[in-house]
């Protein structure tokens, strides 16, 4: 794909999303955990009167993240993504905003399990690391199942 990617560190990897899908980045947010819920939902956040569902990206992507939630940044996605229910998720650290063009992108490698493959839209080889660009639509629809 072409465009700007907002990158962030989660677990040990560098991930990215299309910057057009991001609304804002917050920090030190106070949220309400939802009791008895499946582990993919961390809780709910009150963002200026709007209720944001906070997803547990680490469990969804099946990666291990050691940091606690306190003081972490969270990325809030725009509401147009899936109707009126806005979502957000915690990240470990922010990365840069990168310009990405088609020729830099590759399809995910064969050995990546099928389920994960569908959430990764592209893989970008950077000088020091690999950037996995997330396919948010796929990710979100799989949560609803």
């Amino acid at each position, binding site marked *: 794909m072409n465009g700007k990617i907002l990158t962030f560190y989660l677990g040990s990897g560098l991930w990215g999303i299309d910057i057009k899908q991001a609304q804002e980045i917050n920090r030190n947010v106070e949220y309400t955990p939802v009791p008895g819920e499946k582990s993919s939902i961390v809780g*709910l956040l009150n963002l200026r009167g709007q209720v944001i569902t906070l997803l547990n990206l680490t469990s969804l992507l099946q990666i291990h993240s050691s940091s606690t939630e306190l003081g972490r940044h969270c990325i809030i996605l725009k509401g147009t993504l899936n109707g009126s229910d806005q979502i957000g998720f915690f990240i470990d650290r922010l990365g840069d905003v990168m310009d990405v063009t088609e020729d830099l992108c590759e399809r995910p490698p064969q050995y990546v399990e099928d389920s994960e493959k569908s959430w990764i839209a592209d893989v970008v080889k950077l000088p020091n690391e690999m950037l996995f660009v997330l396919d948010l639509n796929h990710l979100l629809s799989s949560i609803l199942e």
Partner: protein
Amino acid sequence: MQAHENLIQEFVVEAKSHIDKIEEGLLQFEQGQADDQLIHAIFRSAHSIKGTAGFFGLNQIVALSHAMENLLGKIRSKELKLDGKRIENLLVANDYLKKLFDHVEESDTIDISYCLNQLQDKIPRREGKFEVKEQYRSLFQDLLKHGRTFYELTYSLDQVEAEREEFYQRITQQIESIGSLIQSYSRAAKDALSTEQQDAVFLFSTVLEKDLVAMAMGFDQNQLKQFDVRLQEQEICQLLTQAEQAKWSSQASSLLEHEEVPSNSKQSDGLGQEKEKIRVDVTLLNQLVNLAGEMVLTRNQLLRKITPEIQDQPGIRLILQRLDQTTTEMQEKIMRTRMQPLDLLFHSLPRLVRELGRQLDKQVNLVLEGKDVELDKSIIEGLVDPLAHLVRNALDHGIETPDIRKQLGKEPIAHLFIRAHHESGRVIITIEDDGAGIDLEKIRSKASQLGLIQPEATVSQDELLSFIFKPGLTTANQVNAVSGRGVGLDVVHTNIEKLGGTVEVNTTKNKGTTFRLILPLTLAIIPSFILETAPYQFALPQTHLQEIVRLVPGKNSAKIEKIQDHAVICLRGQIIPLIDLRELIGASNFEITSNKSRKVLILKSGNKKFGLIVDAIQDQEETLVKPLPKYLKERKIYSGVTILGNGKIVMVLDADGLCNAAKISFSGEDQAEPFHRARLVSEENGLTELLLFQCSGPEILAVPLSLIARVEEMEDQQMEQIGQASYYHSQGQIRRLIRPEEYLPITKNELPQNKKMIIIPKNNQSVAILAHRVQDTQFIETSATIQQNSEVMTKIVVNGKIIVYVHLAALFKVAALDSNGGQ
């Protein structure tokens, strides 16, 4: 052109109001409430429509309303009588008129010739050659010219697997390839055994012979009927007329399903004066409602933050009060803008009942009450479907045909009674019929068939009735176009629950059935309780709350029982199952201080009553309930989320969802049974239940529980001293407090300073026992020693300990002597 459009729109609104009046008037006429005034009124309405339509140059509308006016004029001058057929024609014409106004721009292109013919009331020729109707003449000429034959193809839609639309298109294409299609429509099948039971009918013409047609289209020859254009004119005309009628009646019934609820309309308030109204965009109103809600929440936040600080500021308190008042009032008024009278819902019902009555050959008298009751617009919209369903059910399943009714000794005309009224902050809509009632046996067998209950299990009436709301359950043997598929009541139930209301049903065999819809007044802001089950907080709307019971460990342990491993509470003789919220949400690993009291909220959802155990009830708030994010939709115990005044998000609990999650099944009146049985059993087995308590000393005293009315806690201040004796005042009775240690040889110490327990006996209104602590209850074997005795006390051994058994009657006698002596 803008101004012109606005004018036309206004005319449309006005005309529709006239059309409504005409329909109402015609229906009233049919019901037998005929009078000259009515005819005049209907005539005037038709006349106004014609006049203004002429001004706008809407020719077809003018033609149609002119025809109606003519007929009405003749009726008014008593030239013609307004009989059933004419009423029918006028109603159909009225529907056409409505349709014309719906598409006012293209109204000139819509064909109304059928209607005009009906209204012109041609006297049929009695003999002679059959005259083909004018409108069909050109068709006949065409057919004859090309030597075509007329065919009628009937196809049962039961066997259609593809979408109807596709099916129709496909057949049409096929027909067009061999001839030309004249009309197509669908109608109820002759035999109603199949589930879809609709037939598609295609009328077309072609030069081909019958067997060739069948072959070309791949149908069986007996689905095709052939008609000779020259010899069978009459039949062909009949078929064509049928087709026309079928098209219009199916549109009429769909009209009833798509009732538009206008945001404003002119109303005359009895004095004939029209209240001034303004049309407002509904989106704007919704935004206003949201803003009002936000304002209320912000005010709450402000009050919370400021109240501790304002003590010293002069005048601020007054200002805050004013702010408080104004905000509340403003919010209330804004809510009111969305309120509309139920009349909007009701006014389509007479027509529906009439049509259904004719379809089903039943006579029903519909009585509507409470059409001025107001409800929030979105609730009214959400009620259209459920109400229509319930009426359909009543007419189809509940109400019997006049013959059967006569046999049963009932009046042949059945009554359907729909009433709306306000009650304690809610609107209750009652739908009552005097039909056959719901056949509980049939439900039981159907439920058993579907595996919902065991065949031999005893199921209470309430539980059986709750099954009618399950999707897929129907006791109808035949499904017809009206109802019986088994989904109607499920839709009713879901829709009403979605609006925040509940459905109750009651039935008596052969007498009738009553449905009660209980709805909240407003959608958005619901007064709720904020509950805590550490460390989480929840909100629970007050709609389903009946009462709150406090559980103090030790004291009320007698009230909690376990029946078949479920915790229940016995409240005033009724057994209510309990749900522990902590267990339900899976938070049991959190530390609970076991000596803190917990609260039980008794909730009622429909016919189900149950108790929810929480740690504490913190506050009462008006909460703006927001819908649940779709990612959380799985857990049905939540109905939404809300933002509290302090900005915190809490989940809103759903009574029905809690019930289902805890997998409680209810059995109505049978609930009280096992408990009473248990009591009786124990007494029969020679067991007596004792209440064990302590006074100021270490001894444990006991009295038979059956002689005790209740036990109460008392603060120091509630005890009053008069002379030598102490008195206690409760529930309008003044009782003298008796300290057993004064009459029994047991330790007597100082009275405790904190809470004391008062044991109130059943048979004596003037005394009560003052105790320090109530311990427990205990069963012992009834023996001679504890029979009534002139001794005040007897020592007995229970569980290896010596208990002082107090004979109440003797104790009170001694105490009475003592007081008298003291005086």
